[in-house]
């Protein structure tokens, strides 16, 4: 009988944890940001673009400082090798070694897809932290990738956010978004990001393999695979200069 009551209390507490998290929605967003952002970050990743006609993979090495500065060098395939991309705040430059030219990506070019992928340059320019940019509410609990999740609705605090609404599935233990749906102002679903695999790097859970899908575009989406990632590495400030594009 005693065991039965203890079990009931245990079940009740467990179900309370599912329906009413101990953390508030903004705190969950803060934890997600903490998990994903780092002062300095060095990664090697590959993008597999599943187009309507063919599939191709691009490998790249990225140096990232905070949310506003990044430098990417393409490693393969041979056609893209040596291309470099520099992002400083809201500015983006691309260097093509074959033409020995640095091109600033602005205006309508930002809307174009990055090398045929489902990501546009605008997507790459997104650099706001979720807890700063969005007002969140927890809608329900769900399971994704066999992990218990909170399904949260995010409303932009300011009208200048690229996506005014997001729906995110947040792992309740690891504080990582396992699935995201990005909506237009009209409520039309624009993009979906789904984790396929996450991994533990030091004390953080980080995406290992994810699928980025532009819903309006035909194709199977773009798969991103993180090969290696190092947090808090030393990156010389000169890495984030236009001069470094030609080096």
């Amino acid at each position, binding site marked *: 009988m005693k065991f039965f009551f203890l079990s009931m209390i245990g079940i009740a507490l467990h179900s309370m944890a599912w329906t009413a998290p101990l953390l508030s929605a903004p705190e969950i967003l803060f934890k997600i940001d903490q998990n994903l952002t780092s002062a300095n970050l060095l990664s090697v990743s590959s993008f597999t673009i599943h187009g309507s006609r063919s599939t191709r993979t691009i490998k790249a090495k990225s140096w990232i400082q905070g949310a506003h500065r990044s430098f990417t060098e393409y490693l393969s395939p041979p056609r893209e090798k040596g291309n470099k991309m520099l992002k400083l705040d809201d500015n983006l430059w691309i260097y093509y070694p074959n033409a020995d030219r640095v091109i600033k990506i602005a205006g309508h070019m930002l*809307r*174009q897809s990055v090398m045929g992928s489902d990501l546009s340059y605008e997507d790459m320019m997104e650099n706001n932290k979720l807890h700063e940019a969005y007002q969140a509410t927890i809608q329900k609990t769900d399971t994704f990738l066999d992990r218990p999740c909170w399904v949260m609705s995010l409303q932009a605090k300011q*009208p*200048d956010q690229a996506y*005014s609404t997001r729906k995110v599935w947040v792992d309740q233990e690891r504080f990582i978004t396992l699935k995201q749906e990005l909506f237009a*102002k009209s409520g039309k679903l*624009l993009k979906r990001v789904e984790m396929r695999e996450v991994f533990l790097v030091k004390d953080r859970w980080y995406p290992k393999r994810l699928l980025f899908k532009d819903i*309006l*575009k035909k194709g199977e989406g773009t798969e991103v695979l993180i090969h290696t990632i190092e947090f808090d590495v030393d990156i010389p400030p000169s890495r984030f200069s236009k001069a470094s594009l030609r080096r």
Partner: protein
Amino acid sequence: MLLVRLAFKNTMAAGVRTWLNTFILSLTFVFIILINGIHTGMYLQIVRARIADELGGGQYWHADYDPFDPFSLEESHAPLPLSLQNSEKTVPILVVPATIYPHGQMQSVVLKGISPEQSILQLPTSSLKRSAPAGTIPVMIGMRMARDFQLSEGDTVAARWRTHDGAFDAMDFAIVSVFKSDVQAVDQGQLWIPLENLQRMVQTPNHATFIVLRDELQILPQEASWQFHSLEDLLADTRLLVESKRASAVWLYAILMLLAMLAIFDTQALSVFRRHKELGTLMALGLTPSKVVQLITLEGCLHGILAAILATVYGGPVFWYLGAEGYPIPVDTEQFGLALGERMVPVFSVGLFAGTFGTVMLFLAVISYWPARKIAKLQPSDALRGRSY
């Protein structure tokens, strides 16, 4: 009159040589008139089409607007000035960059907001008043755009754009009409949408990027935010294009003229050399050296008159037919970006005929006089004995 009769008889007496020279010269006439007529027709055709579908009677542009710089589009709009809010005399147009997904392919385009009620441009904007399926926005596109993106009337296409604040927004567009225009600048890579819808979509009420005027009338004084562009300014690129085509054709005219003039010069030089005795006899009979020079020059010029008559005989019907009916243009001409439509109608004016005739005759006179001027030194007694000058 005697000289003219004599020159005509001598020219006719030369037989095949005269007619061969005349035919070559007539070809030159026909070719120069035809090419010039085509260039004039091309210019007028493009200008007419651009005024009707694109330019109106002049335009006011937002100071930052540059149609050749897509980077300028996002910021180059502002509320309409009060003095330009006359729907009878002005058509405000708002230009917004966007992305559409025809058949799942991502394509950069521009959305152009225009009032469906406007009557200044000949675009069929009233079709934007047609009802579209619920939840969609009616748009019209040009035939080239429809062909390039494989879209047709009744199709819907997803579109994404950014509001004035920078947030993404997206909706489905219903294509309510596909229009035909000779002007690519109103067709390729753009969708026409009711102005109020577009202003609401990007949250810029009463904004415009440029304003088309009914008449070429500068309503506002030149001010910082809105710049007046006259038709002369707006058509400058078309004028330059046609002028460059004219300039490139000058080489062809020059080669043809050179060939024709060489033939005439050769004929005249040979004629002067071989007709010593005849010319000496004329001088002995009382014709002064200057009259003899005039005779030879006149004979040369007669080739020009005969060539003009011959050109009229076989070229006239060709000019008349082309001037009335034109000729079909190969579809590939579109790739050059010319607003020419399906048929090219050359324009032949009296000035063109007169100018061409006058120019050719001037060259002929010089070319004929050149070998003849030596005759002035000829002594009749020497000429009769067959001696040279």
